[in-house]
């Protein structure tokens, strides 16, 4: 038998301490329904959905554990990303260097932090320098059997608009003649990331369809 601790929800905050918190105690269904209805739209401004965060997701008809293992190998970026090419390990363990062909011969550094239990794969990246990896691509693989009642994987990918997207904090590390900055592309990330996620889906599904390992032999 387990004992449950008593629940004292929000007991540390005065009753009207955070009026913006809507719970059934302070905003009943009659009062809350119009708020919900007002939030439901036919269309949503791009900026509202993709302004500060960039969520994209898809279903992949391939086994989730294998999709996770593929993604958690940094070299998979060489296959499904649009422009990261020429991955090589650096002297620092776990840190890879590659070229982002979006910027003319721009160096890109990547460290992959993966958690097999949660099946999360976070790519910590930066252009030009490998000291401060501030561009962090957060991915998660979910077993579609659990969430969609069918075999396969759900892959979710998010990205947060770090202030360095707007202001390069390390201008000295940039090649002198380069005009682009990675943040210039933020407004197309929703489409760009979806395109890359579609690549990932197509590659994994091709391998699954043809009996090939999702993580290809060359990565062994």
């Amino acid at each position, binding site marked *: 038998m387990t004992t449950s601790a008593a629940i004292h929800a929000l007991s540390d905050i005065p009753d009207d301490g955070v009026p913006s918190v809507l719970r059934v105690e302070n905003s009943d269904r*009659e009062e809350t*329904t*119009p708020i*919900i*209805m007002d939030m*439901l*739209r*036919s269309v949503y401004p791009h900026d509202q959905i993709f302004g500060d965060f960039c969520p994209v997701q898809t279903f992949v008809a391939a086994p989730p554990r294998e999709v996770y293992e593929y993604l958690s190998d940094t070299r998979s970026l060489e296959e499904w990303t649009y422009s990261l090419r020429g991955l090589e390990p650096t002297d620092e363990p776990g840190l890879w260097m590659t070229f982002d062909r979006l910027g003319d011969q721009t160096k890109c550094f990547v460290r992959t932090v993966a958690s097999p239990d949660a099946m999360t794969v976070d790519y910590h990246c930066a252009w030009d320098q490998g000291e401060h990896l501030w561009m962090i691509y957060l991915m998660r693989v979910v077993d579609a059997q659990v969430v969609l009642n069918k075999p396969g994987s759900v892959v979710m990918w998010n990205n947060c608009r770090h202030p360095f997207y707007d202001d390069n904090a390390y201008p000295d590390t940039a090649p002198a003649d380069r005009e682009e900055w990675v943040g210039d592309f933020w407004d197309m990330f929703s489409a760009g990331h979806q395109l890359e996620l579609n690549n990932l889906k197509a590659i994994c599904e091709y391998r699954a369809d043809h009996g090939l390992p999702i993580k290809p032999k060359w990565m062994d």
Partner: protein
Amino acid sequence: MPTLPTVSLLDVASYLPENRVPTEYFTQYSRSDRMAKNVMFRSPKYRHHIARDETAVDMIERAAAPLIDRHGANTIAKVDVLLTHVQLPDNPVLGSGPEVARRLGIQPGWVIDVHNGGCASFVHMMQLAQMILQTTDAKTAMIAAAQNAAGSTFTQTEIRKLAHAPVPGDGCGVGLLAKSEDAPILGVHGRTYPEFAGDMTFEAIPESGRKYWEPGTGQPTIGFTESKITKVFARGNRLVPEAAYAVLNDIGAKPNDVDVFVTNQPNRLFLRNWHDALELPAEKHPDTFDECGNLFGAGIPVTLATENEAGRIKNGSLVLMSAFAHAGDYAGAAAVRWGAGS
């Protein structure tokens, strides 16, 4: 294949019952001050209610009167297609068409009562009339949408207390169509969604289990089950822009080519969401919500007639109509190169 003749929407006219009811009529029955405040905020300022003895046939006859004034009795006498849609039939076993024809003194070869177009019935009837005019010898059609469920069912003692009771209003709109190039229907699109059928209820409150023709104490009303309301809202958010875009696509036009966008008007949120979806400014999306409430199938023609009579729809304008019916089981849209202006 021979080219089909062009059909025009030559004119629209409307009728609103004399009894103009302010929202206070309903809030006096609200359960609480808080609910009354809520109802005032969300409801139209006014709506019109039919008189107790007023029939849908009366409404259609009155709505058609301006057409006779403007086009002459001779033109109306030649109507050979009559389509009617009545929200709450005067007599559930028959359509209103024959009696409307008798009142108007016309002998149409085609008389059809259409009951499944709901709030999109005007577009539904435009599509049907267009087909009949294009494929038979018939030359002139009258279509009529009468909404009469407000003053009748929504004023019952148990129903008028409900938060949504002030939203419906009564009214009637008619359209005159003909084989003509004067105000061409450029495109019309209609689609039934069987997967959304059956979510609209006509039940007695309090629930009694009786059939509507059986005696009993419950007061019959139309509505949705509470759990379906957000589902219906989400469907409406999707269906009306989809139907509108389908027609625009068919005629090779873009939203910014549209001069006037007219929809059904269930509430203010839908109106906002729909012109947002077409990226049109609110000024291009007139409505009669604050004066008339939710006019169901009469919404489109009443708003068109109101705007046209005020001179706000110039001839040559691209007028786009779109609406969804019931809980989403039908949606339709039509585009007309306006020609009914003065």
